[in-house]
């Protein structure tokens, strides 16, 4: 059984490592440093950590000011408040200015769990990818979080990184060949392609193993970068496998499924089924119970594949 680590925990470890090496890195938070895991950096580099209190708008506005003064800024809070409450600040002060701010938002999606609907965002990928110049990243496990964060910090300009609360299986190794902006084919297959992002990637791998026993040869792609999206890998999958299932811990409106559909309809129309949150709010419960109730498990991917196959 693979080790299980939350992507937010990997993010926290990355910040401490990067902070020791990169003196230009500034980290900001809005009173959630214990949850977003920025507290390790706060302890290691207190002179470069700013807690802005429970004030997400000013978190983003001040992050822009620091970045426009030459700093590389990682600004963290829960995804709901980063992308939702502070949307317009991110759009105008970070996006429009091209500020070098990495909005690293944790507790995205249904796996927030017991906190319930007010804290479970399914809209953040949709909101963030409409902002011109914004890179949108949703790592699938702890190892790839660190690998991608390194590239996110090195690139110039605004970026949204979606991280989770719950522990998820680690399936990449620490030196995996992962490139920002390039999808990763984790499993070759010729019958159908599952394009997944975030914590749905490991579910997609489980689904593919199960479907292989039924004789369905499933290709699995980790689409960790949702914007700019890897069009080539999508077109290739559409042409070679003829059918696509998308899987995300996010609304099927505006997220990965929509992004894939935008590419497919323009280039190589094929049928797409979307696994994700279907236009509804969440509720309190354990992450696994919620994934089951709202249809975001390996079994849901299996069903979606069967439905299309």
């Amino acid at each position, binding site marked *: 059984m693979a080790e299980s680590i939350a992507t937010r925990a990997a993010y926290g470890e990355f910040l401490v490592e990067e902070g020791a090496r990169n003196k230009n890195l500034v980290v900001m938070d809005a009173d959630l440093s214990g949850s977003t895991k920025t507290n390790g950096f706060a302890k290691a580099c207190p002179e470069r950590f700013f807690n*802005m*209190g429970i*004030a997400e708008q*000013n978190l983003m506005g001040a992050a822009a*000011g*620091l970045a*426009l003064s030459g700093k590389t800024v990682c600004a963290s809070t829960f995804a709901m408040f980063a992308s939702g409450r502070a949307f317009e600040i991110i759009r105008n002060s970070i996006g429009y200015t*091209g500020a070098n701010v990495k909005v690293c938002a944790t507790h995205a999606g249904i796996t927030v769990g017991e906190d319930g609907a007010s804290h479970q965002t399914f809209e953040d990928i949709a909101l963030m990818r409409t902002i011109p110049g914004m890179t949108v990243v949703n790592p699938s496990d702890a190892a790839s979080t660190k690998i991608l964060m390194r590239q996110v910090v090195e690139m110039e300009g605004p970026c949204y990184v979606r991280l989770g609360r719950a522990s998820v299986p680690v399936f990449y190794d620490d030196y995996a060949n992962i490139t920002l902006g390039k999808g990763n084919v984790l499993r070759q297959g010729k019958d159908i392609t599952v394009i997944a992002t975030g914590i749905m990637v490991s579910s997609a791998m489980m689904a593919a193993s199960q479907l292989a026993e039924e004789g369905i040869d499933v290709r699995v792609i980790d689409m960790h970068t949702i914007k700019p999206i890897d069009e080539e890998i999508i077109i290739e999958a559409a042409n070679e496998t003829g059918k696509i299932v998308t899987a995300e811990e996010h609304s099927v409106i505006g997220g990965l499924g929509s992004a894939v559909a935008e590419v497919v309809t323009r280039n190589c129309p094929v049928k797409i089924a979307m696994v994700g949150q279907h236009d509804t709010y969440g509720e309190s419960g354990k992450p696994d119970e919620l994934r089951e109730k709202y249809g975001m498990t390996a079994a849901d991917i299996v069903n979606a594949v069967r439905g299309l196959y």
Partner: protein
Amino acid sequence: MKRENKEYYEKIASRVRVDIIKAIYEAGSGHPGGSLSAADIMTALYFGEMTINPKKPQMPDRDRFVLSKGHAVPAQYAVLAERGYFPVEDIMTLRKLGSNFQGHGNMHYVPGIEMSTGSLGQGFSASIGMALAGKMDHSQGRVYVLLGDGELQEGIVWEAAMAAAHYKLNNLTAFVDWNGLQIDGENDKVMTVRPIDEKFGAFGWNVLRVNGHDFDEIFAAIDEAKLMKNKPTLILCRTVKGKGVSFMENQAGWHGKAPNEEEAKKAVAELGGEW
């Protein structure tokens, strides 16, 4: 910085006001009222205070100015032009398709603009980040930011105000252009912002009050702010919306309306300019 007498700055401010009227007339839209009320504050900063270099707008350790009430950008364009950042003729393309002189300032198009603003409150928030960065870098540069009074109704302003005091940003000086009017009418009728001084005082700021059209008072307050050891300073500037143009003064209707040719000519004449 060695300063001239106040008549020197008043003359520059009159030229700035003429530029504002002409640019907004050429654009056919824009915000004359709040540009005219803020013109003296910006003239004081750019001509009598800030360490800047129009030939090197990105000079390290420069003082920075953020126009948080971004709709008054015609005043900033005019001040920057008069200060030598670019020719005054350039700003007559204000608000035209393809112009660098956007309806609200864009930092990537116009040298001297430190922050793209327009959505109220955000410039103030960005100035907090700039002041934090200045502290980290032990920069000699100060950060100046100008807010409107109506702008104070934005929630982010108070988030930012709290943070500035918490981090003891004595390298930050904020101005409020208190002309008392906003789009829908008087502040007091739309949404009371008073007492501005007591509110900022309660948030932990050093607060000074001046006549925002008296250069001696403005400079005295700017100098006093620099002596503060552990607090940001707010300079509450009592101003007249539409200042300098008789028929625009204290008229909320001139918040966001361009003058026609006759009105523009009359305004320019009142300001002692040539059409």
